[in-house]
């Protein structure tokens, strides 16, 4: 068995043992994450090979912006 596989299994096992609570990210933390994601997607859209891919990235950015707006309201 590969070392990475053993590591993954050990990690999963520890997560199961310690994972008593579900994840609960803070709004601020989430907003930062989304903004970072949007900027990455913008770069990808700029370097896209075709219009179709560019359009897909644009739609995803739009969805993330909508999520961000919801989070702003929550804040």
């Amino acid at each position: 068995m590969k070392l990475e596989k053993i590591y993954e299994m050990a990690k999963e096992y520890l997560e199961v043992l310690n994972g008593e609570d579900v994840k609960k990210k803070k709004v601020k933390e989430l907003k930062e994450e989304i903004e970072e994601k949007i900027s990455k997607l913008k770069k990808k859209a700029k370097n896209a090979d075709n219009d179709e891919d560019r359009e897909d990235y644009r739609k995803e950015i739009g969805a993330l912006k909508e999520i961000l707006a919801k989070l702003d309201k929550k804040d």
Partner: protein
Amino acid sequence: MIKKSLVYLLLGGLAYLLFVSQDSKYIVAGVGIFIIGMHFMEDGFKLFSGGMLEKVIAKTTDTIPKSISLGVIATAILQSSSLIAIIIISFLSAKLITLSSAIGVTFGSNLGTTATAWIVSYFGLKIDIAAFALPMVIFGVIFRFFENKSTKGMGNILLGLGFVFLGIGYMKDGFEDLKEGIDLSQFAVEGYLGVLIYIAIGIIATMILQSSSAMLALTITALATGQIMYLNAIALAIGANIGTTITAAMGAMVSNANSKRLAVGLVMFNTVTAFAVVFVLYYFVDFVDMMAGYVGISPDDYAMKLSLFHTFFNLFGLVIWAFFIPRLVTYLKTLFVEDMETYISKPRYLNMDVVEVPSAAFEATKKEVIHLYENATEVLSHAIMLHRHRYLGQHNIDNIVRESTDIIELDIDNFYQTRIKSLYSDIVDYSTFFVSKLTDDKKSYIIGLRGACRDIAEAVKDTKELQKNIAKYLQSNNDYIKEEYNLLRISIAKTMDVINQIKNSHDELDVLAKSKVLQDYLKNMDVITSGRIDALIRENKIDKKMATTLLNDSSNAYNVTNKLINVAKILWIEDVTIKKIGEQL
């Protein structure tokens, strides 16, 4: 409604019986323990599959004479034909034995059970099988802790046998006072009427006692003390033989088609043999009297003569039936068609050993719901006439859908029953064992998972009508309606493709963003919101009937895709904050 009322009535009656009678508590508990034991034994034999036990059974039951011999010997040793019948039903369920062999064993076991009558009539005592129960339960539990599959299986078998013995013991304890209270002499009736009455009494008493051996012991005692006539005792013994098949029927009720066939075969064996013997009863009794003289039984030793009768009765049945076993098997196969059990999708992750560690059981449940979703994608893909490997992960889904015009035959009802419903029930059932031990947040996640299961099940059901019409309009000469149905297929295929990407992304924000993009796409594709339906009707491109069918199917497809998106959000978004935002989108 009537069935429901009857169940309540029976439960009410049972509660009253338990309240007023101390003995009945033991009898009813005995039946319960007996059935639990049967389940353990079945699990135990399944664990043995592929191992030594299979070879031993194969060697001892590969021909009908061998099967019959096994039945005779094993029953004579174990002292219970009912127990052998239950073991054989477990063997059949685990597919360790063929129906012909199983029938051979149970027919042989009928002869083997006469050993009890000989012991009772000769030694006046019977081995107390209940005395073995507790040691069996103790060793069974210890063996179950072992890692080795066969040892674990042995543990289950011992535990099961222990419970079965314990159950029979409880039933017998409960009936002990009843047995003393029955005065059989008050029912003595001469002639054929007496024979029929006593056969009926034998059947009913054995059904209640759940043991023909116990009934025979009772009969022999009554006969030895002069409470009943010899002919009436013979009728009781015949009745006991028929009544004991009810035990096998009880086992078969919770098992598969093969087990039902075996139970019916056993009922036929005992009933037909009984009819044949009753028909020539007086000649048969004379024959037994004559044979008793040959083996040295004195003419007034009715108890021994009854044992001899019982042996010849079963031997007679065996001789008649042994030649018809293959024909009987053919008939029984037409009587009960193989049920879907074999094809039922079994849970992959719901391990009961893990239930004590709630966080691990939580993960197992989540993985099982994903398994359920995978099953659903198979049927949904086939319903839209696509194979998953053709379109998942491909860029040109639109073209793939339009090019795939071959009709895929699919019975959605059957698929739903075998691959969705059973797994759905298992997941719901499993989660009840640990959900109360979880934190509130995780509890609500599990409740969400149950909702996801329901959505998956409904999505599959919703595709039934859709599948029928896709098959119809894919072959239509009207290109407009064909294209509309292709668009519905594309919507569903793209939904499953996006969910496939979501599944592998490991980024919950990505799940949310992609779901949102997909929902917007589906809204734009809708035949009503896009205004396409108006144009198609106005320009007479499709007729009114096509239009209403399309509207209904469009609504079905919309429901299916929405449910799938909902399932994806539940499954792959655990973060409470992200989940709440997702609900608002």
